[in-house]
């Protein structure tokens, strides 16, 4: 389900939440975790299809968020795109790859394998756009790109994925 658009009141509430979280107030950290953990986990699981990897990557993404929270500057899309972006980076750093030599037994595994062969930037954009369901504006805010760049990256990523899938089918 795509995230709900951010209303001015919600933006103000989140600004307050971020200020409290930057002081590491436990209640604010709990609120951030309870609000965003599931969405981030689901996106990562959709990418890897493995609970162990999804738990490790999502957990590490939230720990990284704690580290750099004092330097966080509020973005138009809010905290969610930022956390998704951190999770996508953690997945890349984790080095997850589909098990080599394993014949895809499921259509989803084949697609995940092809996704993993894209460039990190392409993987990030496709994950945030189609697995999380974010609009172009939110992806742009979360990844620090302009909207036109996000649209172009998304277009190239899908074209590349199409070629990879065609090559896999041919093989």
């Amino acid at each position: 389900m795509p995230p709900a658009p951010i209303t001015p009141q919600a933006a103000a509430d989140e600004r307050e939440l971020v200020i409290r979280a930057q002081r590491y107030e436990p209640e604010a950290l709990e609120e951030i975790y309870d609000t965003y953990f599931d969405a981030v986990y689901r996106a990562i699981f959709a990418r890897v299809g493995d609970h162990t990897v999804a738990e490790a990557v999502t957990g590490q993404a939230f720990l990284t968020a704690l580290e750099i929270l004092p330097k966080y500057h509020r973005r138009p899309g809010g905290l969610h795109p930022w956390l998704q972006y951190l999770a996508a980076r953690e997945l890349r750093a984790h080095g997850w790859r589909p098990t080599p030599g394993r014949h895809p037994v499921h259509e989803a595994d084949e697609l995940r394998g092809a996704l993993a062969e894209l460039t990190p930037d392409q993987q990030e954009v496709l994950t945030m756009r189609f697995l999380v369901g974010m609009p172009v504006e939110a992806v742009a805010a979360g990844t620090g790109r302009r909207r036109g760049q996000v649209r172009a990256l998304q277009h190239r990523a899908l074209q590349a994925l199409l070629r990879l899938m065609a090559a896999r089918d041919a093989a």
Partner: protein
Amino acid sequence: MLVESTPKQLEEALSRRRQGASLAGATGLTPAAGELEHLVALAERIERLPAELAPPGARERARSRFLAAGDRHRASWVHQHRLPHRAARHPAPHHPLRNLFLLGTALVIALVAGSGLALAAGLSEPDSQLYPAKTFGQRVVLALTTDPVTKAGTEVDLANQRFQDAEGMAAKGKGGLTVSSLSAYYAYLRDAGAKLSGRDVHDARWKQVRDRLIAIKSQTPTEVERGLTEHNDTVHLGEVRQLEKDFAADSKRMDVALGVGPPAKSPGNSVNSPPSPSPVP
């Protein structure tokens, strides 16, 4: 061969698809429709990837780790943002002569400042903003002087200053100030003459003041008239001449009263009192 689509066409096709259009309807009739159909279908396959929630145990484990790390960060943050301890500042020891020293310093500052102001006022001219302070101080000095001869001597000195002021103002073309200075000059001369002529004891100090008065009043405002003439200030020039004319008669009576002129024909013509019975040598 497929014609390549553009990012904009893809975004528009995705948008139409989300609004409920069929795949063919979303991609439209563009030459790139073939590729767009494949790209949109692929995007929808990604969207359909199974996305499961974390098992309860995994969620709680991650939550515990996150909150424990948050506590450590909180402790570190509090440590960094705690105000540094500062020792209380002790009051400076109170020296017994401290107040005396402060009072002395204040007096010295007041004296220096007052002297500076008085000096500046003393050097000021009628067109200066400090000039009223100067004349006020002179009036105070006069008021505090009780001895008539000394007072007359001070008035002679002030008359001389006013005369010089008048010359200065005339040179600057300031006719109004010239007239007022010259008027004050004559007024001081008249007052001094009256005080001296009213004294019965003509001692050496009296004679000294009288001689200074005679010398000062013998000045003619030639420079004053020249200054006003150069500035074509005929109005004030006329006033100056009238003042001079008015004082001429008083001056003669003053001479008689002070014993330096021919005796008056009638005793009622003295400046303030009858002239002395015998001329003072």
